[in-house]
């Protein structure tokens, strides 16, 4: 109870409150106070005030469409990173209404105003660019002149100009502009990744390939190498072409990164061997001090993957050479807003040293805890129960348990941590998991320990899902993959098959349906009534959970006066206490006295992960939607 070292507490707090959270009321049920922004003062002052607000506060600023003084507010929301798409849509609508313009004009003007030197702004720029390029083709065509102008600017805006013209069907005009100078050609090549439609990107391949030639400046060739990674056509050819760049230090890193994106079936054994040969020599030539850079780790990851394509004897000899100079590295990334690691399994050789690099590309903190076989859930639950009490070796959310084999600390957004250890000597399937509260249900995988790694790599056997889930990825579903006009018809007459899928998709863990299920999310029995029959809107709730969050179901983190935190959904609240549902498996909420609460922080990201249905087919998704929306008038 004594705050002896407040600094330590502050550190803990900052780790927990990722940038997507904002301070809110003390849970007394009173409406949250609007931040006082002096909208009638000069735009310079208003912009300064708005910049000082965090995301949640910014959304509380009063807005209306009847006065130009609200323009800076809409503008600030549109350009703020980490906000829900719905907020962006509304801000765009506000700007359109006041300026009597259209979305494309406002997006172009917003893109133009971005500060290219600021990383956050670049991120926002790519998102705005995505919205613009998904506008109907005729809209983009109508704004051809503005897009052409953008082609002569710089940064994301310039690339958007090229991509916009390509989407508008004026690919040739874009190419003509690209031929003007080096910067334009670079922008054209960066535009490839912005073009939404795969077929359209495939059509650009020839132009990208000609940009690879020796006669082109290095910067253009580099941009072309990057662009090729976004083109699905002729990947075997891409594999071969890019392999030629590996030996050249100038192009090695972009080539490695593009090659990493090419699926295994396009990686031929002969080319793979050439690449491995170069990369092994590269590893031997790299001084020890430089063997932990991201560039080097990427190269080693590629080498490791390509060893699978090689005959066992070759693979073994290369691996031995690599082991002489460097510990084998396994890279694991987190996926932004999807609450998962990018790999569901990886293999290590028994009793061998290995370095696992966890790179957190999500917006919230995650860790990586490797557990004994069969102990995933127990370890994760014990970790979550710790709250902010430090666990094993002082690490947050890592329980002091013999079931934990190896663990990173909590890795903040954009950070990475290296976990070096000697793999267990006993071959088997060892689960790994993020033990931040509630993450374990989706965020896990398996470290397969094998006695002969090369033998296994040639014939990898996917390990059993440690939680018993048997599905594999179908595709990353987006709203654009569904036709709103035809949705209602396609749901008709599907019967009750969806009920089984609904359970399988773990929906019941959080939502009540027909009296069964959890209370973490809203009850679904009357979902049609609440959505006034808008099936498309309901589908959006599933595919884009953060698009709009019902405040009742926003995850709240309660920080109590002792510095402990409890995260979950507030299920009840009275004068003296709040009840918070921490774990959907434990139906009893935790009751916290209000006098013990220091503050409550509300997340602007939904507790419901994205991509829940990415392991389901289109038909299955329609079955589930049909089931949810059937029982109502």
């Amino acid at each position, binding site marked *: *109870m*004594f*705050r*002896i*070292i*407040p*600094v330590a507490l*502050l*550190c803990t707090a*900052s780790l927990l*409150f990722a*940038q997507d959270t904002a301070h809110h009321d003390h849970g007394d049920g009173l409406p949250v106070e609007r931040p*006082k922004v*002096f909208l009638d*003062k*000069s735009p*310079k*002052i208003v912009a*300064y*005030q708005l910049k*000082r607000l965090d995301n949640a506060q910014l959304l509380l600023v009063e807005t209306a469409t009847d006065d130009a003084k609200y323009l800076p507010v809409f503008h600030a929301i549109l350009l703020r990173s980490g906000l829900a798409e719905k907020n962006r849509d509304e801000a765009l609508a506000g700007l359109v209404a006041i300026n009597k313009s259209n979305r494309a004009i406002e997006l172009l003007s917003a893109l133009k105003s971005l500060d290219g030197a600021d990383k956050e702004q670049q991120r926002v720029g790519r998102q705005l660019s995505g919205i613009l390029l998904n506008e109907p083709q005729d809209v983009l065509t109508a704004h051809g002149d503005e897009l052409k102008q953008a082609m002569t600017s710089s940064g994301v805006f310039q690339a958007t100009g090229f991509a916009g013209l390509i989407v508008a069907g004026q690919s040739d005009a874009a190419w003509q502009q690209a031929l003007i100078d080096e910067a334009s050609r670079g922008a054209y090549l960066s535009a490839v990744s912005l073009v939404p439609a795969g077929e359209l990107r495939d059509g650009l391949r020839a132009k990208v390939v000609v940009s690879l030639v020796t006669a082109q400046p290095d910067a253009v060739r580099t941009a072309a190498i990057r662009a090729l990674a976004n083109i699905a056509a002729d990947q075997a050819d891409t594999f071969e072409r890019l392999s030629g760049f590996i030996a050249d230090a100038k192009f090695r890193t972009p080539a490695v990164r593009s090659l990493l994106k090419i699926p295994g079936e396009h990686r031929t054994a002969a080319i793979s061997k050439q690449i491995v040969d170069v990369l092994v020599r590269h590893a031997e030539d790299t001084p020890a001090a430089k063997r932990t850079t991201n560039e080097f780790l990427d190269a080693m990851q590629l080498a490791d993957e390509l060893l699978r394509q090689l005959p066992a004897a070759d693979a073994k000899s290369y691996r031995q050479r690599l082991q002489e100079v460097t510990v084998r590295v396994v890279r694991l990334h987190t996926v932004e807003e999807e609450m998962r690691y990018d790999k569901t399994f990886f293999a290590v050789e028994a009793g061998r040293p290995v370095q696992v690099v966890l790179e957190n590309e999500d917006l919230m903190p995650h860790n990586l805890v490797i557990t004994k076989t069969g102990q995933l859930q127990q370890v994760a639950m014990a970790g979550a129960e710790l709250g902010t009490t430090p666990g094993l070796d002082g690490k947050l959310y890592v329980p002091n348990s013999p079931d934990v084999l190896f663990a990173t600390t909590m890795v903040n957004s954009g950070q990475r941590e290296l976990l070096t250890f000697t793999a267990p000597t006993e071959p088997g399937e060892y689960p790994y998991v993020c033990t931040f509260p509630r993450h374990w249900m989706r965020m896990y995988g398996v470290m397969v320990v094998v006695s002969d790694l090369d033998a296994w790599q040639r014939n990898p056997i996917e390990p059993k899902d440690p939680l018993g889930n048997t599905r594999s990825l179908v595709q990353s579903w987006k709203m654009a993959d569904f036709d709103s006009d035809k949705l209602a018809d396609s749901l008709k007459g599907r019967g009750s098959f969806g009920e089984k899928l609904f359970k399988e998709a773990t929906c019941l863990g959080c939502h009540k349906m027909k009296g069964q299920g959890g209370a973490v999310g809203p009850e679904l029995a009357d979902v049609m009534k609440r959505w006034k029959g808008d099936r498309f809107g309901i589908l959006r709730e599933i595919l884009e959970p953060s698009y709009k969050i019902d405040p009742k179901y926003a995850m709240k983190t309660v920080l109590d*006066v002792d510095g402990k935190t409890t995260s979950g959904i507030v299920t009840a609240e009275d004068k003296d206490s709040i009840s918070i549902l921490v774990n959907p498996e434990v139906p009893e909420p935790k009751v916290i006295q209000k*006098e013990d609460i220091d503050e409550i922080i509300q997340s602007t990201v939904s507790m419901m992960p994205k991509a829940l249905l990415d392991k389901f087919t289109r038909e299955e998704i329609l079955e589930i939607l049909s089931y949810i929306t059937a029982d109502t008038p």
Partner: protein
Amino acid sequence: MKRLTAALLICVFTCLVPTAKTASAAEFELNKGDHICLVGNELGERMQHHNHCEILLHQTYPDLELTVRNLCFPGDEPAERIRSLDFGDPDSHLTHSKADVILFFFGFNESFDGDDGISEFAQQMGKLVKETQSKKYNGKSAPRIALISPIAFEDIGDSNVTDGKEQNVNLAKYAAALKKVAEDSNVVFADIFTPTKALFERTDQQLTLNGSHLNNDGYKALAPILMTALGGTPRTEPASAALIAESKDKSFHWWHRYRAVNGYSIYGKRGLAGKTGDGKYDNRDVMERERAILDQMTANRDARVWALVQGKTVAEKCDDSQTLPFLEVVTNVGGKDDKNAKAGKLGSLDYLPAVEQQKLFKLADGYEIQLVASEEQFPELANPVSLNFDNKGRLWVTTMQSYPHWQPKGEMNDKVIILEDKDGNGTADKCTVFADGLHQPTGFEIGNGGAYIAQQPDILFMQDTDGDDVADVRIRKLVGFDTADSHHGISAFEWSPGGSLQFNEGTFKYSQVESPYGLTRMHEAGIWTYNPKTERFGTHVSLPFANPWGHVYDKWGQDFISDASPGFNFWATPISGKVEYPAKHAGGSFNDSVNNFKDTALRGRDVYPQFIVKRTRPSAGNEFVVSRHFKPEDQGDFLLCNVIGDRSILQHSMIEDGTGFAGKEKPALVFCEDGNFRPIDIQFAPDGSLYICDWHQALIGHLQHNLREPNRDHQHGRIWRVTCKGRDLVKAPKIAGEPIPAVLDVLKAYEDRARYHARRELAERKTEDVVAAVQTWTAGLDKSDEPYLHNILEANWVLQSHNVIDMDLLALALNADDYHCRGAATRIVCDMRHKLPNALELIKAKISDDHARVRLEAVRACSFFGEEAIEVALDVLEHDVDEYLQYTLDETMRHLESL
């Protein structure tokens, strides 16, 4: 409420008569051999320095052989007690002291929250009591608990200081809340609020230092009150001198064990530093052994106290022969692998005579150096650390022979000495010890008829009242500073132009200082500000410095800070806006580790810029060249002591650069080839020459050697004096004891230090005399004189030091043509806002001032007001905003938005 019973002795002391009690709580019982621990705030903490309560307890229960351990810290609250790293939680200390009985002293600091805070206070107390009852600190049973109410507030009859009426209303409520907690949790409650309130009302004698905290007489009067409130019947016979001395000696040893200076080098991270030359021990080993010895010595003195109260005789000297041996520290100095020698940090163990050292100085063209005093003539000068001149023009120096840490059983005798140059030849010929028996007096300043002397965790006020230049009054004036590191101790005392005493503290420290206006906490370095006239106390600058050892004001009231360890130099105005603990301003060496901002724009040590490009480190004292004795081209230059990298007095020309300042390095004023030259403090003397305090040590590092490294020198120390060849000295102005109008005329002097001393003198004179004289003086000023506006500003500062505002004089300064004057006047409005109902209006007018410096002062000032100041401050964006102004606005907004 039940009463105190001495279970074993009730038959012996038949004088223990039950007193009438109302509500029921636990019976307070004392058993033979009980360990009593005091836990809580300054009320309890001071009881070990004024031992009356403890002595009375022993006298009243002579056969119980009670062990008393004081664990209080000023500023402690039930749920918040900040400490330096790894000090140990309260449980660990209560376990160490095997507490059978705990007296809790809470409620004073909390009471400033008024009605809003009562329920939280009661809840926290209830929780504390409940948790304490679940512990067995003595290994056998739960501790018996008594909740002691706060004392009442005394009206000391000084209109500059709060009369305590409002505080007493709150204190009564908080005392009642404590009583309720005691009843609910069945523990003892002792009401000392009601009887002290009655006592203050019926006594003319002042019993507090400042209205809120008892003085020695106050504690003497409190002893029987507390004993009675606990239900006992105090003995009335006076304590013998021997008993008082013994009790004091016991408390002394406990104090130096529990509040050990250099905690960060004992239990904190640097405990692992200081490996001995043979690799056997580190600081923690060596110093924890000393703390164990202090525990034994404290226990030896407990036994002597018991013997005395039992009527036995004790040997003249306490027998400490059975204590543990000290650990032997083998030097790590010397040899070809000496890391410190290689790094250029080590001087020479062959100390040169001063006359030889003098030959090794190199001075800037036209200047020369002479020895003022050395340890050769005045052994008392060993380890000099700071210097000041009194209003008679005499040099005062603090010395720290015990640095870095007094060793148990040894002599604690650090000093403040006065060095006089009777024949005016520039060398000292007389040394008087003003104060001795001190521990680590890292800094001091003269004023208020005495001297404020740092000795962490306290600042003493010492005074000579009989004219022999030897202090005969010694008061623990300001207490609650942390002791984590002796070389980060309170330093660089400087009077602000408006009469506040300001002093610096280094990192690792977690300090809590109580005042009649409430509690101030600060952690990890900053500058404190204390106004002796109003007793207001607070932070002047809170920024994650490393160890700021320099602070100086220029003639227009702009101040500048030198941070020693990193060698950084900062303009202070933008970082002196208000922040509330635990927030600190952004910037400084430890910005990222201390502030740990989420917002990346606030991260990094360069978020707040320095005004000179750092080339070398570390620094110490600083000073501006404002002396007609120095060359005209050096006027206004910024001087900076450097004790390792260059062993120099570095010199920088200064220009005004936009809102702020820029310094550019010139060749050093002074450099010495003697590696033992360690210029730690500098100041211009009244005759315009520059005095240098030379710590004179071969070993400079605190961290690089064991605290008990045998080669740390405890003998050497020198004072040097720089003069300019061929230029006349300045005629030292007469200040001490001169008539007020004459002293006011000194405010027209060119030299900053002359005006500084004149203001310090005027602050000590009677307010009504000064106010009247200022009116006459300002009326007689010639408006066409070039320094007219500066004279007006000085007059405003003099009034401010008396807590007085003259609106006409202030308006002259606020509306002056010179922006320097307007800026300084804006600062006065901010400082004196407690006297100016329209302060924010006056500030608002300056937000749109023609000059950015004034606008910056106004934005800074906004931080001291409420949320309503946000709108005022924002309007500064209608003008050009440079880096300093943007920083100040951002910091002001950050604070106001947090309200």
